[in-house]
């Protein structure tokens, strides 16, 4: 085996130009893959961090309360008891916050718009204050009753500034119209495309709007130690809550504000709990990530196909040049499988060295790009919920990229190597003659 490795290494070194050209291409593909996956990881982490602060936890325990079968209120009664049950069933839990959920119309002197209204207790919120970039006002003033935080797009559309009043109007879940005036205390920089539909008021204000008592909440947002466990925890929690005596809604991959009509049509009354994940509550983020991943896969496939064709061509050339050598080696007693191994070793060695170099370069480039704090163009900022390009290098992903490229490239060398192994010694030697 060592001799085969030596033959492979020396043949690669002998055809320096060809090796550098193909090895360089493999390395570039690896660099691109490492950068793309790092960009995906970075974007995912950044979107997840922002989205799970604004509108969802990794897992959400919320639900609907129906006084009559034709109504639907996005509330959980006796939330403190539910919180204790949840806490006991989720050892993966890192933290949780209680939020209120509402949907209504924001009316200013000049215009109006529909908005998702979240009730928050600003003093209990952790990341919320750090994630939001407040451009005007003071977010801590959300502790004051009848205060509201809106985003810049809303402020522009409704022509609102700090200190202005905006009327928050909604239908209570008993069917009566209600409205309260809120003072704009903070205006935040947009955080993704959907932030223009979000606004935040104190929990007490939201309860007042809907006429709820203090034992109700919109839902409990759970933050896990490992967000990738969200689906697992949600599934387990659905069963756990049923065992604990709660009625649990069937899982639907939709945010709560898209479920009103569905719930209203259902023939039940009272409380039902809905356990969702961040992917359910933020479909835009899910679509963005799925789309991003699809783009990576397509780009990767195209690049990989090019590389495989390159490897096959290179080995075809090597085999053509060394047909006489193959014939002689077969004549002196080299078995077909050893000929196959000889050429596959050459392909594998080139793939491994090139993809390793590419992975190292890719990681360095990712750190370099992060250090450069590159600004994203506006459109991407809205979609990806981040101002700067953030690349997150994940060692297992880098190793996987490296292995996939090296493995697939090696696979590409099998066909030409197999053809070389099938050469009849006499024909191979004739070609030399």
């Amino acid at each position, binding site marked *: 085996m060592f*001799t085969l490795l030596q033959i492979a290494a020396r043949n690669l070194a002998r055809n320096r130009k060809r090796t550098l050209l193909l090895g360089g291409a493999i390395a570039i593909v690896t660099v691109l893959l490492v950068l793309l996956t790092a960009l995906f990881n970075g974007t995912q982490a950044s979107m997840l961090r922002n989205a799970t602060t604004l509108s969802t936890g990794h897992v959400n325990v919320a639900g609907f309360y129906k006084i009559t079968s034709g109504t639907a209120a996005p509330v959980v009664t006796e939330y403190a008891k539910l919180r204790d049950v949840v806490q006991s069933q989720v050892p993966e839990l890192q933290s949780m916050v209680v939020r209120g959920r509402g949907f209504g119309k924001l009316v200013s002197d000049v215009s109006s718009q529909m908005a998702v209204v979240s009730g928050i207790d600003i003093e209990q919120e952790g990341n919320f204050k750090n994630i939001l970039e407040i451009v005007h006002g003071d977010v801590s003033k959300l502790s004051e009753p009848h205060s509201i935080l809106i985003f810049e797009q809303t402020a522009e559309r409704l022509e609102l500034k700090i200190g202005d009043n905006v009327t928050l109007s909604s239908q209570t879940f008993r069917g009566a119209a209600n409205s309260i005036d809120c003072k704009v205390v903070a205006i935040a920089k947009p955080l993704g495309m959907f932030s223009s539909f979000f606004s935040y008021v104190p929990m007490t204000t939201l309860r007042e709007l809907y006429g709820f008592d203090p034992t109700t909440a919109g839902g409990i947002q759970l933050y896990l130690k490992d967000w990738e466990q969200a689906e697992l925890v949600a599934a387990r929690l659905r069963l756990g809550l049923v065992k604990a005596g709660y009625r649990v809604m069937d899982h639907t991959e939709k945010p709560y504000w898209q479920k009103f009509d569905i719930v209203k049509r259902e023939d039940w009354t009272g409380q039902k709990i809905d356990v969702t994940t961040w992917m359910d509550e933020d479909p835009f983020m899910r679509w963005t990530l799925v789309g991003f991943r699809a783009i990576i896969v397509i780009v990767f496939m195209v690049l990989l196909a090019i590389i495989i064709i390159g490897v096959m061509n290179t080995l075809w050339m090597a085999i053509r040049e060394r047909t006489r050598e193959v014939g002689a080696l077969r004549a002196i*007693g*080299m078995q077909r499988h050893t000929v196959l191994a000889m050429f596959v070793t050459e392909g594998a060695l080139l793939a491994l060295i090139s993809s390793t170099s590419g992975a190292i370069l890719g990681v360095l480039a990712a750190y370099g790009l992060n250090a450069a704090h590159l600004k994203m163009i506006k459109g991407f900022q809205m979609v990806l919920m981040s101002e700067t390009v953030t690349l997150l290098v994940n060692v297992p992903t880098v190793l996987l990229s490296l292995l996939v490229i090296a493995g697939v490239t090696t696979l590409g060398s099998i066909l030409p190597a197999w053809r070389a192994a099938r050469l*009849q010694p006499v024909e191979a*030697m004739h070609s030399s003659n």
Partner: protein
Amino acid sequence: MATHSASHPIVHLSNVDKDYQLGAVTVTALRQVSLEIAPGEFTVIAGPSGSGKTTLLNLIGCVDVATRGQVMVAGQDTGKLSEGDLTRLRLNALGFIFQSFNLVGVLDAFQNVEFPLLLQKKLNAPQRRERVMDLLKRVGIDEHAHHRPGELSGGQRQRVAIARALVTLPRIVLADEPTANLDSVTGNQILDLMQELNREGTTFLFSTHDPKVVTRAGRVVRLVDGRIVAEETPEQYKNSQA
């Protein structure tokens, strides 16, 4: 691998034909060839270009199979062996010396000679080293053991090729025009070496169309248009050519 006593022929061909298909045309390269090579012989297959010398060596060397007839090498009927068995037979019973040396360009002289032993997997590293160095010394190339073929002259390369052919202690060494790519002085040196090795017990069968080379043989098999027309001494061959 079958073993045979010294009196048994190493090679036995009986009524062998070899046809090649060139499109719709069948070309017969060998017709009704019968031949025996006994251990210790130094036999030359002589004949003009296109007479079938290389085809005959290919059949004996188990790199090709006969269309009709029987080819026995080291006691085995090559027509009945699988591809893998033929390869093993070549590795263990035969040595090859090629006109163009056909050394592995990226391995040095030592590694080229060692290569068949690595394929055999019978000897450990120190044993292989001893065998290879002995042979390199024997063919007078030990000082160039770590030179690659590109750094050696034609004669030196052919010496390495001879050492490679001998390293597995084959029953017979087949050489296809071994001096054709060498100048006459180097060619003579190579023939001297082969004769010396033959005197020490190695069986050689080689092809040539050079009458000067034929004179070195113990026996000459004359081939014309794919048929053996004579088996004679070098002197008889010389007279027939005159």
